[in-house]
C-alpha cells in the first residue's frame, strides 16, 4: 500500500486534513479571538482576583493529584505485570472505569457519597473535614478521572523490558528497593513520563466531575475550566478566551517539557 505514491499522498492529505480541520482550526481560532483586541483584555481577566485564584487552585489540584496518581500508577502497573494473582484481571478492568464512565457520573457519585446523606458524611463532619464544595472534593474528582493514565502507559513498557534486568540486579546484590530505583524505574521512565503528561493534561482540563462536586463558587472553588465557563456565561468573552489560552499553554508546556527532556537525553 505504501509503495503506491498516489495512495500515499491521499493518506497524507486525509490525515493532515483531519487534524487540521478538527483540531488545529478550532484551537487557532481561540488564539485569534483572544488576542483580537490586543493582549490587554485577556490579561486583565486572568489577573483579576478570581482569575488568579482559579489558576492557583488548578495548579494545586495538579500538584496533589498528579504525584498521587503517578506513585499509585507505577505501583499498580508493577503489581499487574510482575505479580500474577487471582483477581488480577478485575483490577485491570477496574482501572479502566474512569475512561468508560462520563465525568459527570463520577462527580455525581462523589456528591452522593460525601453529601449530607452519604456514607462518609457523618464521620467526616465530626472530624471537621468538608469534602463537597471545597478543595478535597475537587482533588478527589481529579484523581478519579485521571487515574488510569500512568498505569496504562507503564504496563506495556514493563512488559517489554521483561524481568531479566531486574534478576541480574538481584544476583549482583541489589535488594528490591535498589532494583526498583536503579534498574526498573530508569527503564520505564518514558512510559511513566508520558503517563504523567497525560494525567496533568487531564487534571488541568477536568470540567465535568469537578463542576458537580465544587459548586463552582467564584474565588473559592473555581478551577480554570470552571472559570472559563463562568466567564462565557457572563458574556465576558475576552476572559473566557484568555483563560482557555492559558489552559492550552499549560498543557502544551508539560508536553514540550517532556519532549525536551527526552531529546536532551537521547543526544
Amino acid at each position, binding site marked *: 500500500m505504501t509503495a503506491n505514491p498516489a495512495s500515499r499522498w491521499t493518506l497524507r492529505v486525509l490525515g493532515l486534513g483531519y487534524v487540521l480541520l478538527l483540531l488545529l482550526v478550532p484551537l487557532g481560532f481561540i488564539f485569534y479571538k483572544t488576542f483580537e483586541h490586543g493582549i490587554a483584555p485577556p490579561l486583565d481577566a486572568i489577573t483579576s482576583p478570581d482569575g488568579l485564584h482559579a489558576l492557583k487552585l488548578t495548579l494545586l489540584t495538579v500538584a496533589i493529584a498528579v504525584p498521587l496518581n503517578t506513585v499509585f500508577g507505577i505501583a499498580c502497573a508493577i503489581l499487574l505485570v510482575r505479580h500474577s494473582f487471582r483477581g488480577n484481571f478485575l483490577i485491570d478492568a477496574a482501572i479502566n472505569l474512569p475512561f468508560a464512565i462520563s465525568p459527570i457520573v463520577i462527580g455525581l457519585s462523589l456528591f452522593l457519597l460525601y453529601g449530607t446523606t452519604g456514607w462518609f458524611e457523618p464521620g467526616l463532619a465530626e472530624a471537621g473535614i468538608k469534602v463537597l464544595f471545597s478543595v478535597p472534593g475537587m482533588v478527589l474528582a481529579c484523581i478519579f478521572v485521571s487515574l488510569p493514565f500512568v498505569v496504562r502507559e507503564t504496563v506495556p513498557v514493563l512488559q517489554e523490558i521483561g524481568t531479566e*534486568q531486574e*534478576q541480574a*540486579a*538481584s*544476583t*549482583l*546484590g*541489589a535488594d528490591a528497593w535498589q532494583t526498583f530505583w536503579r534498574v526498573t524505574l530508569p*527503564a520505564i521512565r518514558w512510559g511513566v513520563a508520558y503517563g504523567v503528561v497525560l494525567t496533568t493534561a487531564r487534571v488541568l482540563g477536568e470540567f465535568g466531575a469537578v463542576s458537580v462536586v465544587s459548586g463552582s463558587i467564584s474565588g473559592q472553588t473555581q478551577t480554570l475550566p470552571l472559570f472559563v465557563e463562568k466567564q462565557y456565561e457572563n458574556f465576558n468573552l475576552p476572559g473566557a478566551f484568555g483563560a482557555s489560552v492559558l489552559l492550552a499553554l499549560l498543557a502544551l508546556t508539560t508536553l514540550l517539557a517532556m519532549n525536551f527532556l527526552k531529546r536532551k537525553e537521547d543526544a
Partner: protein
Amino acid sequence: MGISVEGANKRFGDFQALNEVSIEVPNGSLTALLGPSGSGKSTLLRAIAGLETLDSGRVAIDGEDVGAKPAQKREVGFVFQHYAAFKHMTVYENVGFGLKIRKWNKRRISQRVHELLDLVQLPGLADRYPSQLSGGQRQRMALARALAVEPQVLLLDEPFGALDAKVRKDLRTWLRNLHDEMHVTTIFVTHDQEEAMDVAGQLVVMNEGRVEQSGSAEQLYEHPANEFVMSFVGEVNRLGDHFVRPHDMEVVLDPDERTQEGLVQRIVTLGFEVRVELVLSDGTEVWAQLTRAELQRLELREGQIAYLRPVQAKSFNGSSPSTHGASTPRGTNDGGDAGVPAAV
C-alpha cells in the same frame, strides 16, 4: 566453593521442570548442564542462583544450605542468554553496578572496572552504551559485570546461545582460558553437546527434568548410561535393540556371519570425513562415517550393495548397559555375546 543440589523438585502448573534432581559440582570445576530445551537445565541453574524457588529439595553452596537466602545474598555471578544489560547505563556503570551496591568508593570501583574490562578484552569501551556493542561484546560485558563482585560461583545460562557460530567458538575458548586463570566454580547451561564437551570438565546430561548421567565427556561418550545419553552426546544408529556410533560401523565388500547387507544410497564428502548412508534389508536407514582413504580403498558408489559390520555396539536392555565389542580388542565385552547385532 562446591555446589550440591539434593532431591530438587519444581513444577510449573502441569509441567514438571525438575524431578528429584541431585548434582554435585566440585569446587573450582567447570561443569556443563547439557540437555534439550525443556529438560530443566535452566530451571536448575536458576534455582542455584535463587532466581527460582524449589518446591522441595536442597541447594547448598560451599556446604551451606542457601534455600532461605534470596538471590541478592547468594554471592553468585549470573550471566543470561540475552545479556540482561542495563540499557540505560554505560558499560562502565553496568560493570560497576554490583560494586556500587556494595558501597565501594569511586576510586576502587574505577580501578576494578578497568581491570575487568581489560580481562574481558573491552578496554576503551567504558563509555559506550550496550546498544552500541555487538552481541559478543555485550556478553563479555555481562560476564565482567558478574565477575566484578568476585562471586563464589559463576552461573551461565546458555551464554553463547544468541551469538553467531564464529563468535561462539571464540568465546568458548576464551571462557575456558578464563576459568583456568580464575578457578571460580562455574556451571554453564547449553543444549549444544559439542560446546559442552569443548568447554566443560564435567557434564551433567538432563532430560525431562531428570539427570540422566553425569561424568567427564569421555565417560559419557564411551559409557553412556542409556539410550538418551548415547544419542544426545553423539551421533548414533539404531540396529534393533543395539546402538552403534557411525564411526564404529565398518563397511566391507565381503559378507560374513557378523555383517548386514545394505544398499548405499548416498555418499556425502565433508572434507576429511565421508558420510555413507545405507538402507538395510528391513528398511532401517543407517549411516557410517569413513575417512576419504577408506572410501577410496573400497571404491564405493551410490546404488551398490555393501556390508556393515558394527565394531562396537551397545544395548540398554535390562538394568545395566552392556557393551558388545564384536570384532576388535578395544571393545569391552561385559554383556556376553548374546545379541550380536548381525543377528538382528
